[in-house]
């Protein structure tokens, strides 16, 4: 049983220590039937990529709450390309930029960085899980 569960890498990027959302997401996504590889907080880009390769994960969920997301999240997609997992799902969410900012702006910026989905501050896990399931189903990585 354990081994059929789709693996998801989860972590909070850069020098960011916000842990509460991370713990809740891990709890909720696990409960939803995935196997969560939770790297916790303060995670450098390379750790996300390495964990994904080692565990053959199908998606990387990057959180950035503290405002440096703009700087920290750049280049993760190309890192994945270089490491041969260019097609992996990349989600990003949290409070991505410094300051209260119009979200569509932020979304375009991060979509431009190569993330497949960009989430508004305070989004609930249910939404994320729903998206994960449909995106992975499309890719044949998930079936209920």
């Amino acid at each position, binding site marked *: 049983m354990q081994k059929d569960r789709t693996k998801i890498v989860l972590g909070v990027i850069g020098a960011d220590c916000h842990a*509460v959302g991370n713990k809740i997401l891990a*709890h909720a996504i696990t409960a939803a039937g995935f196997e969560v590889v939770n790297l916790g*907080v303060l995670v450098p880009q390379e750790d996300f990529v390495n964990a994904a390769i080692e565990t053959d994960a199908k998606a990387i969920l990057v959180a950035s709450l503290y405002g440096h997301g703009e700087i920290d999240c750049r280049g993760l997609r190309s890192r994945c390309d270089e490491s041969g997992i260019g097609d992996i799902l990349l989600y990003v969410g949290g*409070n991505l930029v410094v300051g209260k900012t119009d979200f569509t702006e932020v979304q375009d910026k991060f979509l431009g960085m190569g993330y497949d989905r960009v989430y508004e501050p305070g989004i609930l896990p249910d939404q994320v899980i729903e998206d994960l399931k449909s995106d992975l189903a499309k890719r044949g990585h998930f079936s209920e």
Partner: protein
Amino acid sequence: MELKNKKWTHDEFYAIREDILKQWPTGAEVDMAEAFKYHETIPAKKHFAKRLVKAKKNGETLTQPRAGVALINEHINLLNFLRTEGEADLLPTTIDSYTRQNQYKEAENGIEESKRAGRSLLNGFPAVNHGVAGVRKVIESVDGPLQVRHGTPDARLLGEITLAGGYTAYEGGGISYNIPYAKSVSLEQTIYDWQYCDRLVGIYAENGIEINREPFGPLTGTLVPPSVSHSVAIIEGILAAEQGVKNITLGYGQCGNLFQDIAAIKALEQLADEYFAKNGYNDCVLTTVFHQWMGGFPQDEAKAFGVISWGAAAAALAKATKVIVKTPHEALGIPTKEANAQGLKATKQLINMLADQPFPLSSEVQTEIDIIKAETRCILDKVFELGNGDFAKGTVSAFAAGVLDVPFAPSKYSLNKILPARDNHGAVRLFDTGNLPFTQDIIDFHRIKIEERANSEGRKPSFQMVIDDIYAISKGRLVGRPNRS
């Protein structure tokens, strides 16, 4: 190095100082002797420690924001705006997160990007990179008492530079700036590094310069029971006092139930006096800081004003010496200076309207005081025992044993066995007391309180209840009732 709660000799201190100042080029600017002279030129009204002492004497509650941006002039404008437009009594300099992790190169990069972007890409002021000279520009251009507020496990270089630069208050501690802010830095390390900072402040004190120190009270800011944060605050206070710190502010983050919040501040004052005296630190001035709700905020600004105002009311009724103020932008991003000033003004209005209203200790408040004191004594005395009479040693073993445990902490050195949840009146209790060294009575007290709520909600206590409580205030409530959120 063997960690113990013992005042460092000058030799021990200066032995490692050279290397610390070498961690970044600006360290070379630090000249302590010159710094002492510089501090003597700082007028009393800009002196943080003195302002707190005056407030304590007059029973005032002072307002203080959080604020910091990447560039010096922008930072100066921000602080002056919060002082004049926001009527802030005390001013901060919030340090960016790269500096907090000693990533000075990334901070430098953030400064450059901010110059290019014309807006701050850093979430705070990178004081180390700006150096002593840069810091003094701030000190000299801002009319108000200034404190360094951060979240830095190793804050030694930051301390050397900002104190030499003229700051008169320094937040943080070896526990409170590790457990909530780090993942895999050992407590031996951070307590040791913070002994350095405390000793530095002690050396300033030996030279007649009084610097205020403030352990970070709220920890993870999310449903932290008063006795847990009080234990950490008092331990860090004692560790600081041992190194010669004379002016200490102990903090607490609002839980939201009025009686528990008022009781928490009263209990903190009483416990601190008790343990400082018991351990022979009789010449410290102790004050308190009340943090407006530190957990998730509502995104709607009007609702955020409601949360801010309730925090202001609790702080005023508890007669805390100062209150750290949130803003209507809290849930979404670092506030604009206008939003920051709005939080300050709403808070000031309430503090002024409540200043004349004493809140006598009702039996409800007294009951909370008693339980908080009983719990905190259980923890502190066990820590003391585990350390064979040494709070530094004891703290390390206590966290390993879960005798000290902080909910939702990212640090692997916190067991994370305790689970907080609100009782039926919204007071923060423990749904799981983990390994906290509580008496059976206290454990039962918590169990009964949680069951009371569970019954009224017609569900069993569960982790879902904890999650509901984490979201509750951001969803417009205090208690995360199932059908309502």
